[in-house]
């Protein structure tokens, strides 16, 4: 265990020992700070008593008194009458045991303070209107005056705050008024001084040990704070700047994009997004539960080193409470995934090709849905009866649908996945491309259901999830290859790359289709390639019209023609999305041409998507 680990361990054990007493100290300390000390001292109904009188007869010389040996003699006035107070031993403090005798200073008779005197003195000292209900001489220990070592007179008043007036039997002076306010204060003092034996003292072993432990706790705490500060884990987030973090869930194999505050630790950022990593210490770097894995070689904090094995560290595991969102793009976690589900409202639908419908949604309540380019969502398709053909097919696409029967079909419902054709900061609408799947006497569940939506209709979808996205690698070029509705995630990535700036690497799009009508977003890409010097657009058609001037054939042929150029000493990444037959063939071409498989990224939407 490192020195810091040792410090943390001490901190924990000491806090068990004195934690509750510290709370008592803080609580009672707060009371002392807030309370009115005059009232809390029992002085609410107390006034000073002037006993001073005037001599009316000669005073008897003190030498004539019996038992005259004394340390000192005081002329003491009690209720305007003079008395000699013969002091045999006078201690440092009034409450300590003292040996004192009183004599009438006129007659020399020994004098003892009796109940009528005491009652009178108490009444003079008391400003309230209540009456005396009891008078008694109390021998020490006096419960309400814990330090008192002498017998004292106690005069109780019949008031709501249960005032007791204590009078010194040797001086005839009021010691204290003890009322409920004062009792509360004394209780606070007892708690603060850990005086659980009511000794009235704060010099005892219990409090000394507690104070020693508290000092240990403070020192270890400060050492820990300094260590946190040094490792950069202690900062004040000024603004909640967010960034996308792609989180791969090992349990489900899915990946979700979460927009997390940059200044948060991964643990807290994920928690805010509803993903709870296990943590027993709450982010203190002491339990070692909040593991995550990063492909990036992150620095190791002392907590990482203490709580993870060298093997785990080498494999890229770190503690989520020890690292910030800001330095990281992608992590893997083993925590159960909190799937976000949204109710989406249809805001726009239109055919963009004879078989692909572009549908736009907004989340209910204008809720922001964070995701990155290339993400998909899973739509809940309720069971029911759907039309095989769309009802709003534009006239000019009618010829492609002549073979398709009209009518309805019934199904059980299910879940269908669709890629987003945009990304969150580009568009606040969620845009999907739904391609009509057609079978003998039925249509696809998803396409017939989503394709029949009218503006205002609501659907339920969860996600977004992302397995497919542009890497953050410093590469020279990205080649995107797609066909059919596989264009959707590629379109999102293209716009994302465009937004990153034209002075960056090249982006290529190889789009395959049967004819001009099926070339989705053709005009948009044409315009973009004219405007952006680093975007290259190569559409290719397998059966074009005679007016087509572009490339003819399948995407595979275009790739074969370009591959030499792309692999010419530069790093090129390939992004594939489309029908599975096309994807397999393209991948084979790339591998055979010497493209390393880690530079090929596939969005395999045919397998269950």
């Amino acid at each position, binding site marked *: 265990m490192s020195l810091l680990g040792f410090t943390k361990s001490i901190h*924990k054990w000491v*806090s*068990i020992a004195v*934690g*509750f007493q*510290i*709370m008592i*100290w*803080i*609580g009672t*300390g*707060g009371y*002392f*700070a*807030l309370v009115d*000390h005059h009232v809390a001292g029992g002085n609410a109904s107390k006034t000073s008593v002037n006993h*001073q009188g*005037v*001599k009316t007869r*000669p*005073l008897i*010389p*003190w*030498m004539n008194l019996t038992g*005259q*040996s*004394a*340390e*000192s*003699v*005081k*002329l003491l006035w009690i209720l305007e009458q*003079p008395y*000699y107070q013969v002091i045999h031993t*006078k201690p*440092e403090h009034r409450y300590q045991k003292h040996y004192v005798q009183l004599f009438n200073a006129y007659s020399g008779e020994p004098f003892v303070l009796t109940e009528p005197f005491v009652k009178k003195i108490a009444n003079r000292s008391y400003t309230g209107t209540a009456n005396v209900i009891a008078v008694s001489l109390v021998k020490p220990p006096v419960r309400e005056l814990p330090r008192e070592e002498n017998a004292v007179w106690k005069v109780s008043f019949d008031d709501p705050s249960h005032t007791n007036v204590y009078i010194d039997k040797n001086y005839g002076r009021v010691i204290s008024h003890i009322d409920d306010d004062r009792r509360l204060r004394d209780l606070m003092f007892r708690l603060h*001084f850990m005086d659980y034996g009511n000794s009235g*003292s*704060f*010099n*005892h072993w219990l409090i*000394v040990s507690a*104070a*020693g432990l*508290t*000092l240990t*706790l*403070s*020192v270890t*705490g*400060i050492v820990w*704070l300094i260590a946190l500060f040094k490792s950069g884990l*202690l900062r004040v987030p000024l603004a909640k700047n967010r960034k996308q973090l792609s989180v791969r869930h090992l349990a489900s194999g899915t990946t979700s994009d979460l927009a997390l505050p940059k200044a948060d630790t991964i643990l807290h950022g994920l928690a805010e997004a509803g993903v709870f990593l296990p943590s*027993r*210490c*709450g982010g*203190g770097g*002491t*339990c070692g*539960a909040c593991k995550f894995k990063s492909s990036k070689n992150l620095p190791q904090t002392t907590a990482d080193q203490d709580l993870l094995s060298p093997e785990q560290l080498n494999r890229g595991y770190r503690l989520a409470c020890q690292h910030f969102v800001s330095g990281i793009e992608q992590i893997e976690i083993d925590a159960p995934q909190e799937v976000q589900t949204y109710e989406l409202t249809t805001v726009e639908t239109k055919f963009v090709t004879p078989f692909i419908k572009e549908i736009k949604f907004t989340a209910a309540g204008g809720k922001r849905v964070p995701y990155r380019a290339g993400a998909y969502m899973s739509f809940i398709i309720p069971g029911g009866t759907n039309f095989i053909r769309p009802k709003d097919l534009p006239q000019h696409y009618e010829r492609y649908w002549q073979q398709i029967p009209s009518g309805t079909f019934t199904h059980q419902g299910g879940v269908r996945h669709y890629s987003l054709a945009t990304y969150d900061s580009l568009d606040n609408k969620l845009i999907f491309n739904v391609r009509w799947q057609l079978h003998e006497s039925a249509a696809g569940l998803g396409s017939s259901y989503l394709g029949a939506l009218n503006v205002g209709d609501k659907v339920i979808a969860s996600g977004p999830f992302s397995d497919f996205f542009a890497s953050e690698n410093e590469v020279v070029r990205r080649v995107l290859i797609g066909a059919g509705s596989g264009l959707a995630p590629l379109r999102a990535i293209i716009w994302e790359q465009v937004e990153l700036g034209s002075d960056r690497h090249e982006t290529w799009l190889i789009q395959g289709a049967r004819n001009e009508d099926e070339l989705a977003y053709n005009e948009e890409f044409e315009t973009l390639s004219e405007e952006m010097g680093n975007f290259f657009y190569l559409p290719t058609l397998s059966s074009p019209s005679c007016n087509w001037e572009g490339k003819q054939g399948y995407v595979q042929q275009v790739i074969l023609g370009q591959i030499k150029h792309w692999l010419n000493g530069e790093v090129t990444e390939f992004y594939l999305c489309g029908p599975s037959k096309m994807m397999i063939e393209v991948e084979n071409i790339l591998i055979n041409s010497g493209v390393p498989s880690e530079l090929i990224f596939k969005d395999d939407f045919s397998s269950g998507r």
Partner: protein
Amino acid sequence: MVVVGAQFLLWAISGLYMVLMNIHYVHGEFLSVDSREELIGREVNYSFDSLVRDNPKAINVELTMSSGHPIYRFVTPQGHGAAVDANTGERIPPVKEHQARQIAKYSYAGNDEISHVKLISDASLKPSEISARHLPVWQVTFDHYSAPTFYVNEYTGEIVTKRHTPWRIFDWMWRLHIMDYTEGENVSNLLFILSATTALAAGLTGIILLVLRLRSDFAKEAL
């Protein structure tokens, strides 16, 4: 914790000091010898009766021994101390420097020499460790690392208070403890209230964290 961490440390240090040091030691009770003397009655030729007759408004009249001779001490209506020779009934003149030295030395339990003596009569120039009601006083400091200081009242020759370094430190610790960095008297200062509130929050969250951690520690062991 970042905000009140340093104050926590100060509370812990000052609290530990205050509970560790016996309060009677702090008050320097060991500094003076047990100088109790029996009153010598035969030297008292001036009675209480005469004193009250000559000084009708005197309060707290006390007959006691001072450096081997009986004297009366009392408080005048003006509020300052006064002393009268119990043998002759004459007002004892204000204590001179050599007498102050003598009184302090007589009462001091140690063998150290006096390092310096100073008369303090102006309330605005008094050190913060003594109260204005003790003025005027001779400040007699002994040559010791704890700088024991006896304060001798100029009018009565009485040692009104004592100080030494542990007591002075105690006062500082008290100020740190209540966070009153000026006078050391105001417990209800805003800084203290704010810190106490923050500390309460910090303490509570600390307890919650501790409970969470212990629960999981035990759960882990049970596996």
